[in-house]
Each structure stands twice: as structure tokens, then as C-alpha cells.
């Protein structure tokens, strides 16, 4: 937060850190700058403060939580009891594992299929190029609807299988178009010379096009991974075995519906552990991966969001 504030304290003094505003621009008043800074900090706190409360409460002891009368804003001592109990086997451990596995497997699958498809469609004038592209684009204009999709998944026998959490939502056509637009902007001379050297299309994709498109691949990977990690609806209609539910569904049960986690009743009843801390710890488990990963990819977001829109 200190770095955030340091940028807000006033106009850059010439000679110290260089002038950031062009010469023709009016120097803003100090009052204006200060109020802008305050608003920005408030907006950012609107995002961060609830997360802070959730994290602090998950790390608080029963005593602290009772003293605070519930959620804890000011931390008084840190304890990892809630996490130890949650991750030492049982419902939440299993759900976390399910979520991690589905996310990793699903993202790899989605990326493999999307990257291949995007490359396959990246050369205008290739055989069947237009019909295949139209086949993809058409799906952006209609959605089949919930009921028929459900019936198809059921008809294929995918219910109560992890495949139901991956296959129906494996592709996002917009993501494919973004990748395609990027691949098309790869220097054609490189591809041409590789072909003259005898490289096949798989090899060109793997050794030339993909390394040159690292930025967009990182963004689309993140989008897919976040999609799998956050998904709960498909599991709620296709998975009936409670042991197979992913973390988001378990979080829904434990926090929104206020159910007690199975297997932890004793720890809670003996007063070792606050049910509130357990709930908050589950939420932190769900938010950690995205909160840690997304800032790394942030500088590429713009490309990932806009390339497809321009060239689609």
C-alpha cells in the first residue's frame, strides 16, 4: 500500500523523479490530486477490505473470534488450526484435491484442443478454412439451452463422472479466436522457412508459433484455469455423489448453506475450533490460487481481451 500512496502525494517535482505530465498539460491542484488519491484508495479498499476480514478471521483462534463477536478485523495472534483441521483429510481436503485435479486436467485438455484448432484455422485460404470457421462462429450466436445440454450429457452416460465437469465446458470459442488472431500475426516468413526446412505443421506450431505467442497462451491458460476452478453449477447438476464434489460446491454447502463440515463436529464441539474460522478458511482456499496467479499474467490481459475482438 505504501507504493500506492507514494504515487499520490503530489505532482512529480522536476529534477527529482522527472516530469510525467507533458508540458502543455495544466498542473493539477494539490487538493484535486489528494482527493483523487483518497477516492482511489477507498475504491481499492472496497475490494481488499472484505478479503482482509476473511483471511484474518480464518487465522484467528476461538478466543479472538468470541471476543470480536464474530468476524475479526484486527488480528490478535495467528493460528493455523482451521487449515490444519481442513487439510488433514476429510471432506474439504478431498474437495480441494478434486478441484485441483479437474482444473489441471481440464486446462491442459482445453488448451491442447484450442491451440490446435486455432492454428488449424490460422491460414486463410487453406482447404475448408471458411466452413470450419463458420462452424465455430455460429456457436457464438446460439446457446443450445440448459435442458438439451443436460439431456445430452446424461445420454452420453457422463453423469457422476469427472468428464461431465470438463467436456461440456471445455471450449470457449472466443478464446480460440483470440489465439487464432495471435497465430495469424506470427511472421509468415518464419513459418515459410521452417516449412522449406521440412518441418510439419505440428512441429511449426510447437517450436515456432507457440514460443512466439507465450503472452497470449499465458492469458488464455489463466482464463480456462479460472473457469474450471470457479465452476460449480455443472457439478451441482451432474454429480450426485457428495464425495466427488469440487471445492466450490463444498464451500457453497459449508458457508452459504451453513452446514457443518463432516468429520469436524468433535473439534468444533469441544471448542478447539470456531465454525466461522473453518468457513473463512474454506473461502481462503478457494481464493488463493486465483489471487496468487492472476497478477502475474496481468500485463498481458489487454492482448488476450482485445486481439480477438479486432480480428475475429
Amino acid at each position, binding site marked *: 500500500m505504501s*507504493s500506492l500512496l507514494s*504515487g499520490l502525494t503530489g505532482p512529480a517535482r522536476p529534477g527529482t523523479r522527472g516530469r510525467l505530465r*507533458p508540458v502543455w*498539460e*495544466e498542473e493539477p491542484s494539490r487538493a484535486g490530486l489528494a482527493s*483523487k488519491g483518497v477516492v*482511489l484508495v477507498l*475504491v481499492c479498499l472496497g*475490494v481488499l477490505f*472484505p*478479503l482482509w476480514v*476473511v483471511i484474518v478471521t480464518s487465522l484467528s483462534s476461538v478466543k479472538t473470534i468470541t471476543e470480536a*463477536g*464474530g468476524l475479526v*478485523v484486527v488480528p490478535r495472534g495467528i493460528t493455523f488450526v482451521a487449515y490444519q483441521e481442513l487439510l488433514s483429510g476429510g471432506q474439504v481436503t478431498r474437495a480441494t484435491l478434486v478441484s485441483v485435479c479437474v482444473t489441471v486436467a481440464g486446462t491442459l485438455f482445453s488448451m*491442447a*484442443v*484450442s491451440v*490446435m*484448432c486455432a492454428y*488449424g484455422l490460422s*491460414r486463410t*485460404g*487453406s*482447404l475448408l478454412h471458411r466452413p*470450419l470457421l463458420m462452424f465455430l462462429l455460429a*456457436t457464438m450466436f446460439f*446457446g*443450445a*439451452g*440448459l*435442458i*438439451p*445440454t*443436460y*439431456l445430452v450429457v446424461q*445420454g452420453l*452416460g457422463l453423469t457422476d463422472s469427472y468428464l461431465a465437469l470438463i*467436456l*461440456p465446458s471445455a*471450449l470457449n*470459442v472466443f478464446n480460440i479466436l483470440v489465439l487464432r488472431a495471435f497465430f495469424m500475426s506470427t511472421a509468415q516468413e518464419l513459418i515459410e522457412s521452417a516449412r522449406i526446412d*521440412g518441418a*510439419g*505443421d505440428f512441429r511449426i506450431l510447437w517450436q515456432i508459433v507457440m514460443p512466439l505467442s507465450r503472452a497470449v497462451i499465458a492469458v488464455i491458460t489463466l482464463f480456462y484455469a479460472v473457469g474450471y*476452478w*470457479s465452476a*460449480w453449477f455443472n457439478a451441482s447438476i451432474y454429480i450426485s455423489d457428495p464425495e466427488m464434489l469440487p471445492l*466450490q*460446491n463444498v*464451500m*457453497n454447502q459449508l458457508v452459504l448453506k451453513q452446514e457443518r463440515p463432516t468429520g469436524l463436529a468433535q473439534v468444533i464441539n469441544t471448542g478447539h475450533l470456531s465454525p466461522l474460522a473453518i468457513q473463512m478458511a474454506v*473461502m481462503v482456499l478457494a*481464493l488463493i490460487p*486465483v489471487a496468487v496467479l*492472476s497478477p502475474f499474467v*496481468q500485463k498481458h490481459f*489487454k492482448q488476450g*481481451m*482485445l486481439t480477438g475482438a479486432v480480428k475475429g
Partner: protein
Amino acid sequence: MSLSTQDRRARDTPKPPVTTRAAGDRPVAKLPLRYRLRRDRTLILMTLPAVALLLVFAYVPLAGNVVAFQDYDPYIADNAFEAISQSPWVGFEWFQQMVNDRLFWSALRNTLVIFLLQLTLFFPVPVLLALFINSFVRPRVRAVAQAILYLPHFFSWVLVVTVFQQMFGGAGLIAQTLREHGHEGFDLMTDPGLFKFLITFEMIWKDAGWGVIVFLAALASVSPDLYEASAMDGANRWRRMWHITLPALRPVVALLLVLQVGNALTVGFEQILLQRTAVGPGASEVLDTYVWNVGITNGGFSYAAAVGIVKGIFGLLLVLGANKIAHLMGEQGVYKK
């Protein structure tokens, strides 16, 4: 790839007549099909997994909408496909029933009200936030602010709703603080009257920051020369915003408006589903959750599919209509004329 396969491939691939090739891959004259197939078969092969997935999970379900014209009975056979082939046809009966279905009209009304709230309360926020962030000159400040504001977009709806519950719920932080100071607690999460504002607020918290990205890109693409020239001509910063910045945002705003209107009937499905029991269906039921409730929960697949079809058709008409209006106003819209 080993050397021998390379050799074989080079030998197998017929050489195209040199004169028909221009720069790049665009053929000037049409090449023989046999040659094009040989040349492009790997490319076609690469698209096949995606084509297969879309076929099974987008096109086949589209055909599965025939259940809306049947009296679909899931127990008539073991498998959904067989059940579809054996269920009796009923024509447009379900669609006629919809006209007199009070719950359907209530769901439609809720959907449209939520859409209007989104349009008036959600839509302007990213534009204003983008203008605000853009007014900071230090790259560091902008990067940190963006990182923080983008964050909630990557949270799942379950997480967002639980965060709101912890802040505004009956046992939430605000109610807790009020009670500590001797006031009565309050519970925003179970108030049917405020529900529609609550979910709009949740949408803003989750996605308004992310929406900024498009507008910031549009702002970054404005040539600084324009600003400099107008400043030379004596335009102050508000006139520059009015005459340069806002016109630059116009196409993007138009595009996003078209998209938003096209999605008018699809409002916050997952989000509402998670909070449906807390406030009751009267205030929260939208078309999508109605389809879910009738079809998945109560097994009325045929009727639910009929509602889904009506929603889909009107959704498509909305996209086309909104795009038409964008064209008439001289904007590009989603697709070109």
C-alpha cells in the same frame, strides 16, 4: 520428425505450379483439390477435436430442443437419447401453456428489471473507473490499482456471494458492528425488496473493475497529438475530455451496449441460483433459473426446454436488433453490415 519422414514427405508432396502462388498462402488461381488436401490435411486434422466437441456439446443439444415439442418422459428408457425417440409428440402445447403461466411472466419481468438495473447502474461504472484510472499519470499507481480492481473478476460466484454474506448478511460484519453499538442488526442477503439492487451491487464488485480494461485500451489508443493540439488551441481539461476522450470511447461503448442488450435475457444465472433460497423465488426467479427449476429440479424437461427456446429466439432477435440500431447510429456494432 526424423530425416527419413521429412524426405518422404518432400517427395510425396506434389510441387504446385509456381505461377499460381502469390505472397503468403492466398492462392491466385484455384489449386487442384488433391494438392490442397495434401497441403492442408494436417491443419484440418488439428481442428477436428474442437469440431467434435462443439458438435457434441453445442450442435447436438441444439437438435435436442425437439423435446420442447414432445411430452418427454425421462423414465420411458434408460438413456436420454432413447427416451427422446420414444416420447410422444405434442406440437406447440407447451408454448400455449406458457402464455397462461403466471410464473413465467413473473420470471420474465424479474429478468427485464434486473437487466435495466444492470444497464443503468452497472454499465457506466467501468467507463467512469477507466476515466478515473486514466487520469493518474504514474504507471506504478495505475498498475497496482488495476491489479486490485481486476482481482474479483477471477473469483467464483460462490466466493463473491459468500464474501457479501460475510459483510452484509445477518451475521455479517455490518450487522455485527451495529449490534455492538446497540442498534438493531440488519440482513441485506434475505431482503426480497432489495434483492435486485444487491445482485447489481455484487456484479459491480466482481466485474466493473475488469470492464475497465477495454476502455483503458481505447483511451491508450488516442493519439497524444490530439490533446496537445487542442491544449494549444486553449481547450481546458474538461473540454479535451468532452471533445477527444469521450468520442474515442464511443465505438467501444456502442459495442458493449449491443452485447449487453443482446444478453438482456441472460442475467446472473449462477449468482441468482446461489441466493434463490435466501430470498425466495418471487423476487429472484429469472428465466434461466426458472428453466433450471422446472426442468432439472422438477423434471418438467419439455416445458423447461420450451421456455429455453423462447428465451433463445428473443435473445437472438435482441442481438440483431441492437446491432441494427448501432449501424443506424453509425457505429460498427458486433459484426459488419
